[in-house]
């Protein structure tokens, strides 16, 4: 039991950090770039994806023995599309303002390669427990990336974070940050930063290994 808990935890952390869907796998770029001009949009998109990913991973893992291999992709897509439609209607009914901001990108969650990728690569081959841990991790990683990008763009683009003004009235907005190019530039710089971090960690690990080796 303890072992499986550890494993589940590993799957979770993998998604959040080590194999972060955005910064490491570079998946799901379309919603990533399109809706992250404010932190709150990032949260909404992240939560929508979160719900769809958890739901589909659960169902796919549950039904994995019933779905013939030849039609698995179609079945995955039907499952994902169902959840997406549900999210679409629920958001439209409960949070029309957010739904308007996210617009066409909610139905497009169906085409988010992150979700289909997790079904094909993980949920359809693992137990429900592991599939949920994996989905939770990936969705959290995606949410983290969306909020980070949305936060940076909102701070520079409007001088606010989650709608709270940070710099007062005289703030000069960086218009480009709210526009699509700002998404590309910020994402590029963030990828640069994460790669730099990774490289630094590798160097550090190598150093540690070297000193440990000499000690022995």
């Amino acid at each position, binding site marked *: 039991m303890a072992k499986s808990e550890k494993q589940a935890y590993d799957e979770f952390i993998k998604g959040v950090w080590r194999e972060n869907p955005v910064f490491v796998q570079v998946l799901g770029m379309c919603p990533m770039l399109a809706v992250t001009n404010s932190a709150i949009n990032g949260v909404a998109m992240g939560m929508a994806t979160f719900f769809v990913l958890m739901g589909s991973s659960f169902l796919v893992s549950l039904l994995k023995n019933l779905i013939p291999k030849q039609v698995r992709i179609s079945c995955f897509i*039907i499952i994902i599309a169902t959840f997406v439609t549900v999210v679409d209607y629920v958001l439209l*009914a409960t949070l029309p303002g957010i739904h308007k901001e996210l617009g066409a990108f909610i139905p497009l969650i169906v085409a988010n390669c992150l979700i289909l990728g997790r079904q094909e690569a993980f949920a359809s081959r693992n137990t429900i427990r592991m599939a949920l841990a994996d989905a939770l991790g990936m969705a959290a990683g995606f949410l983290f990336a969306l909020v980070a990008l949305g936060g940076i763009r909102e701070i520079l683009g409007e001088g606010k974070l989650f709608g709270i003004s940070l710099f007062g009235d005289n703030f000069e907005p960086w218009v480009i940050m709210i*526009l699509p190019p700002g998404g590309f530039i910020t994402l590029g710089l963030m990828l640069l930063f994460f790669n730099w971090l990774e490289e630094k960690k590798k160097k550090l690990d190598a150093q540690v290994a070297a000193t440990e080796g000499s000690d022995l």
Partner: protein
Amino acid sequence: MSEEKQAAAEAGEPSSNRLVGTLAVAGLLSGIIIITVYLATFDTIKENKARELREAVFRVLPGVDKMQRFLHKEGALVVSHVEEKGEKPIYGGYDKAGKFVGYAIPNAGPGFQDTVSVLYGYKPAERVVVGMWILDSRETPGLGDKIYKDAEFVANFDHLSVDPKIVAVKKGRKAKPNEVDAITGATISSKAVVRIINEGNERWLPKLSKPGLEPALEKVEATPEKAEAEK
């Protein structure tokens, strides 16, 4: 992969009946779920949309308490309760006593980035625009979006003569009652709003009822929601 599946794979392809069956069942279940959610959220969504529209109408027509939809049919304005496909309605606003105040006319046209949808209030008695509200736009944040974020620009439309037609002038040069101060740095978006209103006027003003002869407020179905609810 399960043993059962492996065995099936070894035995050969699963029959096409099974494949079709699986997809059919999946589609059926999915359909049932979607219809359930659709029905469960339908009323709320409808209500949200109606409320949004009502708020917009009340905003562009100060002093309005009730509204009803008009369609232009066979040369006259008629009150309409049921939405029809492809129709282009305008809205009539009435005050508390049920007296006609003015029309709220929606129109859309190209802005700087994408289509801009405008709703504006028009008082036929004085031939003035009395309010403007942007229903939808994707104008540049920080520049073009001032067409609805800049209160000064919006205030231009509070009492704006439509004769001979509305003209956008450089900021600070508004002199005549039919002129609008454009936004510095967003001339194209400002002019787009003006053009959209002018086009709306061209299309609708000749079709409006004569002042004083507007369709009366029908008491039973004062607001669109009630109409929906009764339906």
